[in-house]
């Protein structure tokens, strides 16, 4: 794949050069054809008849065809290469993000921040078509143009070389300023984003304090700074473009003067004067896109910086080598554990101890936000505890990788995700080898049989992003079924009955505890109706686990 992409990139540049050279040839030859024909026409009938117009007009048509074909093929091949690059970059980024999830992704989670992340990846991959290709084309074609000119008039070639070099230098010189402007704009922008998000979160308070509008005014000022940076960037690019245009015509006039002198000295025929002038205009076509390309480079550079920052290791728990595997009985023992999420003040757990034996059904209760869910994060090593020890199956969880832990513990997290795909794909995601009978069994337990039967396409129904919209309760039960299908010794359910009415809640819990009687179940909930199905209840209070004894 990598080699295929590399060849496409090279081919893209080659075709781009071919298109530009054909374009140059078209104008160059047309200029000569017109002037030559005019000279011959003026010289009278004989010389007009002697003038071979067939050859140059065939040449003109040839260049025109080559230009059309080469440009089309360039687009296809270059975009193919760029898309291949995108694929590779995505895989690279994804591979680095896996060990960081979810701790390292918290800052990316908000709304469409992940979307920006994806567009950053695309922007970096577009570096090839938007930046590398125009610059490579300018360099390669420039050499050819100068070479062609040198065949006719070395001095004109020198002037053209200087002109092209100047045209290429303009965007390069303005590049540093562009980089700065892009970076400054992005920094201010993310600052505004952060403040806006914070204000929206506390909108009620800001409104009642009558402070919302003054904050909005503050952003407008900051935003105008961002706008100013944007404006400056456009101005810089526009000025660079204008400068290149001026350079084009100044070079053309200079070449005209040189050509006229050479003609007077007898070094150049009449027809070659307009040809060289047109040649200059055609040659500068490869330099004109460079200011825009330089601006794209500034943006791609920022995007790649952001990507690298996002892919850098964060505060996730690091697995100590060597790995170990838990062994039966799979008991969980937490001793004296303290934990706080990074960048927060209040600790979630403080010297908390808890032990859960294999086969127990334990309800974990407490108001929302007290950190019931942090148990999952600690167990899978997504976050490291500040103190204390956690062992699972006789092994310290720091020695366990999340991937190994997944073989023993099935989790229905509160923020579970249904992927774009069929219902069946999603169910089988954690247990690819499950049979249809297994699926039917867990659907029955999750009280989904009737719902699935009611769907026209059954298990082949499309869910996820732009698929069927499942209600919160339905989606959660799909996640429960998905977890059950994995038949792990442990089952951790975070609010499994949220969004269900009372009878359904009862039915689900009854079926679940009967079906998974031998399985350890940890059920985090704030719904009291769930608790009678548990062997014992533990309350999370004041950052500690307080046993409440047997549930009634």
């Amino acid at each position, binding site marked *: 794949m990598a080699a295929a992409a590399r060849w496409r990139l090279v081919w893209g540049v080659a075709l781009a050069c071919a298109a530009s050279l054909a374009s140059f040839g078209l104008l160059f030859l047309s200029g000569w054809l017109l002037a030559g024909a005019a000279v011959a026409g003026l010289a009278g009938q004989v010389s007009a008849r002697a003038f071979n117009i067939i050859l140059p007009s065939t040449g003109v*048509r040839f260049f025109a065809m080559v230009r059309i074909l080469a*440009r089309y093929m360039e687009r296809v091949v270059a975009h193919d290469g760029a898309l291949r690059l995108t694929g590779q970059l995505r895989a690279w980024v994804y591979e680095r993000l896996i060990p960081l*999830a979810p701790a390292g992704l918290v800052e990316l989670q908000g709304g469409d921040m992940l979307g920006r992340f994806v567009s950053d990846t695309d922007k970096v991959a577009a570096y090839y078509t938007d930046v590398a290709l125009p610059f490579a084309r300018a360099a390669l074609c420039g050499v050819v143009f100068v070479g062609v000119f040198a065949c006719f008039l070395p001095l004109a070639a020198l002037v053209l070389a200087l002109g092209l070099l100047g045209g290429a230098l303009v965007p390069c010189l303005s590049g540093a300023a562009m980089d700065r402007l892009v970076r400054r704009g992005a920094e201010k922008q993310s600052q505004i984003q952060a403040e806006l998000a914070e204000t929206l979160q*506390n909108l009620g308070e800001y409104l009642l304090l*009558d402070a919302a509008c003054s904050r909005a005014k503050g952003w407008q000022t900051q935003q105008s700074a961002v706008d100013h940076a944007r404006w400056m960037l456009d*101005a810089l690019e526009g000025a660079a473009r204008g400068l290149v245009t*001026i350079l084009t015509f100044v070079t053309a006039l200079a070449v005209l003067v040189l050509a006229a002198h050479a003609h007077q000295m007898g070094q150049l025929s009449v027809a070659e004067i307009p040809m060289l002038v047109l040649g200059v205009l055609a040659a500068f076509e490869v330099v004109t896109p460079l200011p825009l390309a330089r601006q794209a480079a500034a943006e791609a550079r920022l995007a790649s910086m952001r990507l690298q920052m996002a892919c850098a290791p964060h505060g996730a728990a690091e697995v100590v080598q060597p790995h170990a595997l838990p062994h039966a009985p799979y008991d969980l023992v937490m001793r004296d554990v303290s934990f706080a999420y990074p960048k927060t003040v209040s600790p979630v757990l403080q010297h908390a101890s808890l032990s859960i034996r294999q086969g127990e059904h334990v309800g974990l209760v407490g108001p929302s936000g007290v950190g019931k869910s942090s148990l999952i994060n600690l167990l899978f090593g997504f976050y490291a505890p500040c103190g204390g020890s956690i062992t699972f199956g006789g092994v310290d969880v720091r020695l366990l990788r999340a991937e190994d832990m997944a073989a023993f513990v099935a989790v229905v*997290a509160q923020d579970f995700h249904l992927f774009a795909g069929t219902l069946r794909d999603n169910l089988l995601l954690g247990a690819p080898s499950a049979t249809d009978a297994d699926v039917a069994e867990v659907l029955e337990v999750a009280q989904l049989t009737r719902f699935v039967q009611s769907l026209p396409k059954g298990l082949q129904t499309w869910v996820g992003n732009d698929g069927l919209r499942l209600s919160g309760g339905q989606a959660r039960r799909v996640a429960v079924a998905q977890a059950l299908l994995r038949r792990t010794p442990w089952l951790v359910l975070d609010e499994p009955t949220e969004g269900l009415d009372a009878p359904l809640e009862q039915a689900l819990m009854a079926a679940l505890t009967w079906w998974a009687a031998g399985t350890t179940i940890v059920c985090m909930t704030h719904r009291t109706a769930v608790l009678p199905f548990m062997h014992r209840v533990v309350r999370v209070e004041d950052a500690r686990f307080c046993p409440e004894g047997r549930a009634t």
Partner: protein
Amino acid sequence: MVAASTRPRGTDMTRELVRIARGWLLGSVVAGGVSAVLLVCQFVLLAHVVDNVAFHAQAPHTQGRAFILILICLAGQVGARFASDMMGTRAGLRVASHVRGQLLAHLFAAGPVACADVAAGDIVTTFTEGAAALVPYFARYLPSAAMMVVLPLLILAVVAGVDGWSFLVLACTGPLVPVFMVFVGYGAQAIMDRRWRQLSLLGGSFLDALRGLKTLRLLGRAQGSLERITQLADAHRRTTLSVMKVAFLTSAALEFFSSLSIALVAVVFGTRLLAGTADFRSAFLVLLLAPEYFMPLRTFSASYHARQNAQAACRAWIRFWVLPTLARSYSGQPMQGVIGGVQCRALCVCRPDGMSVLHDVTCDFAANRLTVLTGASGAGKTTLLHALLGFIPVSVGTLEASNVSGHPIQLDGVRMAWVPQRPVMVFGTVADNLRLGAPDADEEQLRHAAAQADALGFIDALPNGFETHIGERGSRLSGGQVRRLALARALLRNPDVLVLDEPTAGLDAASALRVSNAICRCVPGRIVVVATHEQVMAARADVLLHVADGTVVVQPVRAESVA
């Protein structure tokens, strides 16, 4: 607020936005036109000079005046082009800034409950990136659409004056380009529509995998999905390319016609020059102008996706503009008289998604009394507070205020204050946080409010007193101190109604006692409503309201707290 119902939708919106930046857009188009005229002049002069030098054996130094004129035209053309671009950018930025202002105003008018229903990230990205997507549309697309008419017509007119045949060639090929582009464009669109699901699925697959990365890790399938990412990216490439191959035909059509017309002009003119029926100057001029004839079309088609992005952005705005606005305003006129009470009569409140939360609530909140709301979480305490504060519209029933003599007064004029469970603490000093709601408060007022809220002691004990930095989100203060600071801030505005949500949750017994004492001290002269789970607070109540199953029951107050 009235504007919400008359807010235009979809593509109409861009049309309305044009009006805002009309001056700049007009300037941009005019400057573009000037630049086009100067460009044509410049080519005419260049053709003139080349003809003179090559065919009339005039030495270049005799052409000094023409050279200077060319340079003047060049400078003018480049300058006008630059001015046109800059005015276009100004227009775009102005529209973006206007839309941002409108969005914020609307969100503030919609209130916190409606906004909480939309993901904050969505709003933030729409506010910044969505608005930014409008800029290229106004800065590039619209001016280039205008230039697409101006420059080709101008060139056509000049060519018509110079040579009939070339005029015919250009006049015939020119209109064919848009026709073919539309033709191919529709073809590409048809393929896109047919493969829409596949394209959007594959296009979104990376985002989908990133969103579900935690789920995949919990399933132990993250490494396996890496392979899938590669496969999907490859499938995405193939599908996208199949659409692109057709879409690129539009630019190929453009390329075809522009190359064809250059070749035609060259070949046709060549034979005529040979026959002596045309002069070189017009031939050279037409050859110079022919590529420029197609240039605006190329710029236009390059900025075409700016239009799509802008329309997508507009669709995103509309999602926020349909949020209903609240009837109450929070920076209104001062109240008429001293507050006596707020009465709820047969109140029903529904969540934004239509689910009923409170029904048939009838209760009084009286001044000089501490009203405490209790009830299980999710029973509707917070919703009742929101209704009282005006954050959520009342669907049935009435919510009215009266002064001490029992006469009804406008709820709009009643000053409300709210101390939520996690009060907002801005980055800055203690004084900055206190002055958030009262920017003009002097030191004396700050001390008074802090003393009332039992915050003066700890503030004075801080290293720099009121000028101490409290860190990110008040991280240098304890939970109890943050609550008392927020209470002081609320008192600084001297509210008629003071609403507190779980003021003692998560505090140790000593802090909880201090906070509840401070709250009790605020009761005289105003309505104080506290929602709580905790006995500490409930024991101090003058009126105890129990919220259960979406309705409110008045409960007897314990004897010891009355005493």
